């Protein structure tokens, strides 16, 4: 059974600080996704990581994937209030295209 674990589940930080969210998964998968969700809103795709060593950056967010360690990280640089949201990682199997989700990390960035 594929399991996806995120930590931390809740993160409160000050603007300007850096932090990292971790996503571990339990079985082999070559595709990992990061989504952002604002309260009561839809899921916005941030990154799709398709191979070992993949690194993608968009603004203050950078995601990486280590398939051997079954670990992805989402790094936030010099956080700003607008990044406050819940961030989910999700994984799918090669033979099964349903996404299995982490529990989400609720990020609050204080001015």
């Amino acid at each position, binding site marked *: 059974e594929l399991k996806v674990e995120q930590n931390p589940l809740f993160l409160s930080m000050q603007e300007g600080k850096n932090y990292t969210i971790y996503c571990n998964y339990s079985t082999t998968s070559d595709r990992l996704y990061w989504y952002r969700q604002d309260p009561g809103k839809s899921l916005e*795709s941030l990154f*799709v990581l398709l191979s070992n060593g993949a690194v993608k950056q968009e603004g203050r967010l950078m995601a990486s994937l280590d398939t051997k360690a079954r670990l992805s990280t989402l790094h936030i640089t010099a956080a700003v209030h607008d990044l406050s949201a819940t961030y989910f990682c999700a994984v799918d199997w090669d033979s099964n295209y349903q*996404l299995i989700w982490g529990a989400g990390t609720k990020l609050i960035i204080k001015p």
Partner: protein
Amino acid sequence: AAGVIQSPRHLIKEKRETATLKCYPIPRHDTVYWYQQGPGQDPQFLISFYEKMQSDKGSIPDRFSAQQFSDYHSELNMSSLELGDSALYFCASSLTRGSYEQYFGPGTRLTVT
């Protein structure tokens, strides 16, 4: 650019009633996925369709059924509604099964009273 359309956006039903949620995928997308997200929870995969056929099945209750029509839109039918069915229901579409990017609709918020 066209996005995934879901209707209705909000729905209030009473226990034991039925509900039908609709999803219109992005044009040329032939694969549709349904997810349920309870308050404060992560999305749970329910079911998916590829080329009008059910392709994968997740934690969809027997009281729920779904189908994909010839124009690729999909409907999720929910019967004998229970209080625990109150949730956000998301539909996502992808270009084809195996295409790695899923695009999510705005969701339907179902409240069962």
